[in-house]
């Protein structure tokens, strides 16, 4: 139980932080550098990376772990509209699609979940992220009836968001190692 609470706190916090970074820093920058871009969607949507990596690490438990964070972000963006059926459906899509894709791969004989006796495959995780993005973008656009430009923007934002989140984590670990002396010892 304590582990579930910890996972939920961690995954939801990561989702909220990634969303705040996306909406408060990256999107204003996007509006400065691409003012003519017609879509309001982010071209670097970091929360997609949190969804995919949470599903990879936690499996089905990521649905519960992400739900509070996703609800909070939807409430921040849409206010009381968060209780509209379309928003609730969009939230369900946001939290459930990535684990469904990972488990579908597993059932098809391609188990990508962490295994201590196997090297993880980041390109496979990226692949799942891309498939998840197609599904999430398609279903979300169906729910909200958005234009095709939005669909393309969602796809670009999700894929770049996952890649740059992983790159950010890589440099985060590198920085942590350097500070804790792991890298400096070898130099």
């Amino acid at each position, binding site marked *: 139980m304590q*582990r579930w609470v*910890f996972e939920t706190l961690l995954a939801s916090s990561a989702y909220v932080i990634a969303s705040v970074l996306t909406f408060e820093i990256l999107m204003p920058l996007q509006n400065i550098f691409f003012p003519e871009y017609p879509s309001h969607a982010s071209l670097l949507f970091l929360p997609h990376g949190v969804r995919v*990596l949470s599903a*990879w*690490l*936690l499996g089905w438990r990521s649905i519960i772990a992400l739900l509070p964070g996703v609800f909070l972000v939807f409430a921040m963006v849409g206010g009381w509209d968060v209780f509209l059926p379309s928003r609730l459906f969009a939230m369900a899509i946001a939290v459930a699609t990535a684990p469904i894709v990972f488990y579908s791969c597993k059932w098809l004989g391609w188990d990508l979940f*962490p295994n*201590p*006796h196997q*090297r*993880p*495959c*980041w*390109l496979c*995780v990226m692949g799942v992220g891309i498939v998840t993005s197609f599904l999430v973008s398609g279903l979300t656009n169906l729910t909200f009836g958005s234009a095709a430009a939005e669909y393309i923007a969602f796809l670009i934002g999700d894929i770049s968001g996952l890649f740059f989140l*992983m*790159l950010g*984590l*890589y440099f985060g*670990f590198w920085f*942590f*190692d350097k500070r*804790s*002396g*792991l*890298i400096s*010892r*070898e130099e």
Partner: protein
Amino acid sequence: MTEISKLTELRKLMQSMERTLGLEELSPVERDIYYAAEELSKRNDEVRTFGLIEHTLVQSVSRPTFFRALKSLVQKGYMSQSGSANRGRYIVHGPK
């Protein structure tokens, strides 16, 4: 899976990314030994050479290559020899 091992798995994922992007610091054999050592160190504080060489990730590595890579890991600071009297015991460093 414990929280630490999730962090380890995440770190391993980033390391596989590092390899593709050409940012790697460890050779493939060194990395496999390090992964195996990290996995074994979850059960005990110290990792024994005997257990390490039998790990599924390391089984296909020849003994001379294994010991060369192990020595290199120690030199690079990823592992260190245990202070206890027995030789062939190592402590894995990070993720903390």
